[in-house]
């Protein structure tokens, strides 16, 4: 079936980057509050949560870097994709083994795939929240015309649904891309290279 794109459609990579940026902002806000709580030494639970949030932020940043590099056609993307597709089998096997034999805190960690999928779903939910507000306003005040804004949000929602359903590679590949690029970002950052910003609330 041919995919007909609406005039309000946004390229998939850009939409995915928006979703990642949107989720990074929320995670960084949680992180800022947990860090402030831990600084006062008043909550032992905070340290564990901070570790989880930092890991989530680092993996999501790595996915954001992958998306922006893919959008601008970076030369290393095909090599990374090949590597990911070759090695993803081993990652998938490992993920299944982890699910069968969860160990301690590993249970609380989101897989990279779930993390990214959740970021896409969060933007979809927020867009639906905006749509609800507009539709309700239109019902309550028919004299005001919100139809154009509603149409734009409807188109965006269709794009977001397509992104969540078809815009992600295999879980093993997502995991591999996130972990490889996260490592590269950590080493590159230490050597003074710059990467897409982490959008911290609390720097």
């Amino acid at each position, binding site marked *: 079936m041919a995919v007909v794109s609406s005039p309000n459609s946004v390229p998939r990579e850009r939409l995915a980057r928006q979703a990642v940026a949107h989720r990074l902002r*929320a*995670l960084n*806000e*949680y992180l*800022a*509050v947990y*860090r*402030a*709580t831990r*600084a*006062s*030494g*008043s*909550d032992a639970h905070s340290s564990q949560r901070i570790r989880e949030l930092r890991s989530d932020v680092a993996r999501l940043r790595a996915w954001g870097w992958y998306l922006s590099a893919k959008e601008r056609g970076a030369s290393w993307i095909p090599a990374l994709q090949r590597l990911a597709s070759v090695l993803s089998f081993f990652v998938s096997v490992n993920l299944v083994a982890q699910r069968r034999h969860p160990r301690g805190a590993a249970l609380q960690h989101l897989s990279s795939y779930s993390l990214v999928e959740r970021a896409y*779903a969060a933007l979809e*939910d*927020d867009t*639906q*929240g*905006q*749509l*609800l*507000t507009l*539709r*309700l306003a239109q*019902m309550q005040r028919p004299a005001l015309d919100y139809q154009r804004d509603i149409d734009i949000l409807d188109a965006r929602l269709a794009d977001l*649904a397509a992104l969540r359903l078809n815009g992600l590679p295999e879980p093993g590949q997502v995991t591999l891309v996130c972990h490889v690029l996260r490592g590269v970002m950590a080493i590159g950052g230490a050597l003074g290279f710059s990467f897409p910003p982490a959008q911290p*609330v*609390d*720097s």
Partner: protein
Amino acid sequence: MEAIKQVLPLLDGMPRIFSLSDLKQAISEQESALDVALRWLEAGVIRQVAPARPIFYRVVLGEPLTDAERCAALLRTFPSVVMVAGSSLWRQGASVQKDAQLECCITEQQVDCSLTGVVLRSRPSEWWTVIRQAEGVVGNYHGVAMLTPEMAVADAAAFKDVWMPDRNGIDWTRLSTARLSVATEALAPLRMEELAE
């Protein structure tokens, strides 16, 4: 009217605070989740916690939201939420005057909130760095982080947009002068930025 009657049993099964994704899981069809939420909103049986946010609360006549429910709603809607001012002082026993409204700060500029008895204020993102560096957070109230009494007083003096008890209403014996001085000094640069704007 018939349509709303059909989905009312579903509403009764929802928690008092729920998100659009909770609703999607309850009815399993994404398309209709939006329609159901819209029908409920139109009928006034649910409200959005804040405009355009996919978090809702059930409106039950004669049963206002408890503090725990309001805090849960705030935490789900605004990740950066921190309780400030007289609300923080009262809940830590540092004030004899109870707040009429739960006052909290968030990073967003848009501070509209439909929760009864809740007032939101906006703070610049550097504020979260300052309160961490000055150790200005102490514990939490139903999960919502609270400013220390000293930081609450310093923040109220710096931003002047929150409710505070009268001077005599604050139990100054519970506040450390040294910590108050540190908090005031830490917030001073943000105060300057506010004045400059």
